[in-house]
């Protein structure tokens, strides 16, 4: 058992899948000799060559669009969008083309493709290197949307995403790339199924639901309040689309309280859908209103450090939300 970082989990998944299937290839900006601006593809160019590790033109819509074409031909492209903030030019290709291909061809054509993108703030990235974009894509049937919160899941979910026959949006918490470490067994195949949430910390007083970087902070907050006698059950969503309703509902039925945490803007952020599901399915089990800790409704995250901290939910803000709900 070795302790690795979240980004090393990503890199190992890419490496193993490139070795397993010659149809798999990577493309993106600076993924070649540079190894990616975050080093997620470090060493892969040297190992697999320029034919399979493609440095693309600086044009995101064609990274997605060319990927779709290659997937239609039977390849297994893994496209990297350097920052999730830069994915918007590719929205048409992802939403109108990749997501609808299977449905609009009545299953004749499918798009087995992964689009990876680092998302989220806390690294001094300002408005355009900090965005959370998961809700845009989780609104679109035909896509799968995955966000890992730790190295084991990063590796296991990404390997499953690469083998999935559908277009999968894989958003990686960039703040956690090197901050979040965890044990990952060596020399064994790690596949974490898509569409399955995980109770990452069992508890009885309230359910806290999160994913990605916020899940990491929720773990810290849960430890902090446990000293005060508040026993938090934490659910890691992991796959946002399709969502694992069962795990969420079971947990909230047990605890009777739900706190949803996400970094994105509050209005119509992904947790709003979770709140709707719980309101529909758990009404009779709830002992308190469903609560949220979220980013604010401003256009994006400011650069200046104190303003960035103001925007971001962290362990302290989440712990405050936990205490308040536990006391209700």
């Amino acid at each position, binding site marked *: 058992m070795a302790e690795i970082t979240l980004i090393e989990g990503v890199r190992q998944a890419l490496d193993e899948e490139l070795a397993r299937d010659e149809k798999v*290839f990577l493309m993106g900006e600076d993924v070649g000799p540079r190894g990616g601006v975050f080093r997620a593809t470090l060493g892969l160019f040297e190992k697999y060559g320029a*034919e*399979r590790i493609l440095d*693309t*033109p600086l*044009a995101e*819509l*064609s990274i*997605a*669009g*060319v*990927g*779709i*074409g*290659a*997937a*239609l*031909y*039977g*390849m297994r*492209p893994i496209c990297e969008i350097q920052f999730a903030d830069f994915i918007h*030019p590719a929205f*048409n*290709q992802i939403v*109108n*083309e990749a997501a*609808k*291909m*299977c*449905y*609009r*061809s*009545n*299953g*004749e*054509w*499918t798009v*087995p493709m992964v689009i990876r993108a680092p998302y989220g703030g806390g690294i001094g990235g300002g408005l355009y290197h900090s965005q959370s974009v998961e809700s845009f894509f989780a609104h679109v*049937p*035909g896509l*799968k949307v995955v966000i890992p919160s730790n190295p084991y899941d990063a590796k296991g979910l990404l390997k499953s995403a690469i083998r999935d*026959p*559908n277009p999968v949006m894989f958003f990686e918490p960039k703040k956690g790339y090197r901050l979040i470490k965890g044990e990952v067994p060596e020399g064994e195949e790690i596949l974490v199924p898509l569409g399955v949430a995980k109770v990452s910390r069992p508890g009885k007083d309230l359910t806290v639901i999160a994913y990605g970087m916020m899940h990491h902070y929720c773990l810290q907050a849960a430890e902090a309040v446990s000293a005060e006698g508040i026993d938090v059950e934490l659910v890691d969503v992991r796959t946002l689309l399709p969502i694992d309703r069962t795990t969420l509902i079971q947990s909230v039925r047990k605890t009777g309280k739900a706190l949803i945490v996400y970094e994105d803007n509050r209005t119509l952020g992904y947790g709003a859908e979770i709140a709707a599901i719980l309101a529909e399915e758990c009404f009779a089990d709830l002992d308190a209103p469903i609560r949220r800790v979220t980013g604010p409704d401003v256009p994006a995250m400011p650069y200046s450090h104190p303003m960035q901290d103001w925007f971001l939910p962290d362990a302290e803000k989440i712990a405050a939300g936990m205490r308040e709900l536990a006391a209700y």
Partner: protein
Amino acid sequence: MPVKKETLLEMYWTMLLSRRLDERAWVLHRQGKIAFHISGIGHEATQVGAMFALHRGVDWIAPYYRDLAMLLALGLTPREFALGLMGKKGEPMSGARQMPSHWSLRRANVVSHSSPVATQTCHASGIGLGIKMRGDSAVVLTSLGEGSTSQGEWYEGVNWAAIHRLPVIFLVENNVYAISVRQEKQMAVENVVDKAAGLGLPGVMVDGVAILEVHAAVEAAATRARKGEGPTLIEAKVERMTPHSSDDDDRTYRPREEVEALKQRDPLPIFRAYLVEKKILSEAQDKEFQGRAKEEVEDAVRFATDAPYPEVETAAYPVYAEDVRRG
């Protein structure tokens, strides 16, 4: 290579069948029997000439909505087209999900396209990338109108193919009008092929009404592509002899004299006259073709009229590859 006489007749037949089907679709719309039709009348020589220059069934096609004659050349049947017009069960392009003339035909390597224009340009380059990576000998042809070359999607897709010397043919069917907007408001250059130099690939301009000129240009581009020499941009000057679609009325933006003059540029009589002059097509044979086209069109309309609609429950599938249900 010179085209064989039997092949020339087959090309003429495909153009004729496309024209009669297209005309019938307009009538069906005016009768209130279908919700929408988008026409390819005037484009048939370009589409048929291009397809007969490829290895149909081996090469890949990423078409656009005006390509009825192209699809017929690739084996789409009149019955299948009519099912699409009426949104009936068994329509092979989309299971009656898409509007008419939104093509897809897996058995002929025709990939599915959407309504937003030029998106298929990037798909064609991706297919070309796949062909190159696998070391296959196929080429891919993608088509679109001149207005669609204003899209960033088009520039980005062509740029990719040029950088990687991919086996792609970009066929622009230039009919001067993007619905109502003339070419002068789409680009500052005189011809679409003038854009090729800036993207680093050869541009070839042909008279899209002259079927053999198109055939020769596409054949040369395919040969180049198969040799690993990269993509070609072909601009075929054609005429849009109808309004943009059944929902358009071109009287507000197109002078009647201009529309009247288009008859001189109708590719069907031009090709017929050529075949008659070369004694490849006799008057008797033409009459037989005309009769057969009428029969096939009426058979297709009858067949589609009698066909059932899809079961409503099937609208829930297939969202994901896992729930593809055939039958």
